[in-house]
């Protein structure tokens, strides 16, 4: 059982051993292992996108009393492959008056940022491709750079609808960074570290969702707004702005935006699973199985919310953020601090 748990670590140390015996300098060994983990992460991202595409369509259909794609492959499993092939085959049309460099760079940036974020997730004990001590902080900082990419897409398309979508995104994402960060602060206080691996470690006893239900709720709402998922998807509001910031994108460039959205979804769900649902800690099964399972649970909850609720209005959403969520998240920090002190007092006094 322990072997199964440490499967990837055993494989990695095996490779290191080979390279060491071949006489590689340690720097080269580290570089090669870094390359291997990069390939693994990229493969994981791609596989995830394909699976989430299928799950999204089937789950949406099931909520709507219909079956969803079930013709292409068994249970429609090859439908995402079909969609990807279709998008690759389409012509990438660029508007004549678009700002060419900005327009072309936007999908690249957004997808790259999302892929980088996958490197920080703790897939198991000691299985973080990038093990940074300020991992959580770096994660939040990086995920907000996708805002620039969306604004670039909105501006570079030379289309009023895209610009509206881009501007809405900037307002929304920047505003919801604050409750997102504050909700995570409670978890950081409880675990005493910004390292995602250590946060998972600290939940061996009890998951933080039971200690911080309010923070979990705030995190869920803010994450939805960060992802620009319904009910906060005014940035790409199909019924108002046609397609928002990616109106003028077709073919592979649109595919990159599309993939980035789904990859981001999985990423943020994984973050939520790490912070609140215990990450890789769990009995019996190997750590990475628990991690994947919990992440998929979060993904399904997010999809459930997406397919039930209508879209909020942008100014009401901002009011909700500034007047309700932020005070609530500050209250949560206060309560967490008080709670920690009381816990310390009672455990030291009782001894």
């Amino acid at each position, binding site marked *: 059982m322990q072997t199964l748990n440490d499967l990837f670590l055993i494989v990695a140390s095996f490779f290191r051993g080979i390279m060491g015996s071949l006489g590689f300098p340690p720097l080269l060994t580290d570089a090669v292992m870094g390359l291997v983990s990069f390939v693994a992460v990229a493969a994981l991202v791609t596989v995830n996108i394909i699976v989430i595409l299928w799950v999204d369509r089937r789950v949406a*259909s*099931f*909520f*709507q*009393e*219909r*079956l969803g794609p079930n013709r292409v492959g068994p249970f429609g499993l090859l439908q995402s492959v079909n969609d990807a092939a279709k998008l690759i085959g389409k012509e990438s049309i660029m508007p004549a008056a678009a700002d060419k460099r900005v327009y072309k760079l936007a999908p690249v940036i957004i997808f790259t940022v999302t892929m980088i974020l996958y490197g920080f997730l703790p897939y198991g004990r000691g299985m973080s491709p990038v093990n940074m001590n300020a991992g959580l902080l770096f994660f939040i900082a990086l995920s907000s750079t996708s805002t620039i990419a969306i604004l670039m897409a909105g501006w570079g398309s030379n289309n009023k609808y895209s610009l509206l979508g881009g501007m809405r995104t900037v307002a929304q994402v920047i505003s919801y960074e604050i409750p997102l960060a504050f909700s995570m602060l409670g978890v950081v206080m409880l675990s005493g570290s910004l390292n995602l691996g250590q946060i998972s470690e600290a939940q061996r006893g009890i998951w933080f969702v039971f200690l911080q239900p309010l923070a979990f709720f705030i995190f869920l709402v803010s994450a939805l707004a960060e992802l620009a998922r319904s009910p906060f998807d005014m940035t790409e509001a199909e019924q108002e702005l046609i397609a928002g910031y990616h109106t003028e994108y077709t073919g592979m460039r649109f595919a990159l935006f599309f993939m980035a959205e789904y990859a981001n979804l999985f990423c943020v769900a994984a973050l939520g699973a790490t912070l609140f649902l215990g990450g890789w800690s769990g009995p019996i099964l190997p750590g990475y199985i628990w991690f994947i399972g919990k992440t998929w649970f979060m993904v399904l909850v997010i999809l*459930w*919310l997406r*397919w*039930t*609720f209508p879209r909020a209005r942008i100014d009401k959403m901002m009011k909700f953020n500034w007047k309700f969520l932020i005070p609530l998240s500050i209250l949560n920090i206060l309560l967490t601090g008080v709670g920690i002190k009381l816990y310390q007092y009672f455990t030291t006094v009782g001894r």
Partner: protein
Amino acid sequence: MFGIGLVQGLYTTAKRFLMKKVTQAYPEVLPDLPPRSRGSFGFDADECISCGLCAEACPNGVIKVDYFLGEKNRRVLERYSMNLGYCLFCGLCVEACPKSAIFFKTDFDLACYRKDDTLFTWRGNGYRPSAAPESTPTAGAAAPPVARTAASEPGPAAATAAGAAPSAGKGA
């Protein structure tokens, strides 16, 4: 309490998630259509008396009745064509026919690949392949004429192109 509506919505979608789905696996499962359903048209050439009431009743000029005067000066139907591309499926022709020679059928699967296939032609009892020269088929419409009886199934016009075939008698 704020949020109760949201929770009720979540409960509703979760409930429907688990219920039986309403999708019909077409074409393995064909829909159960009522007998009056207006799909395609059926034509009984034996009943038709070439009165032309159907063509007069049609709002769009879909029907064309080609007949000639045979023995005892009776009308003999040569060809009955319907240009379904223009048809509204309103049923005025079916209503107008005194003999119920034209009637609705429930097969709705009328999609075809060529525009010529939207012209449905039935051969009447007086169909004379040699007497009236067939009009030139449009490019791509060449197909061997199908031998059929008077009350047979309609199909894409084998040798009749869209447009008038010069008829020996008065067209309706």
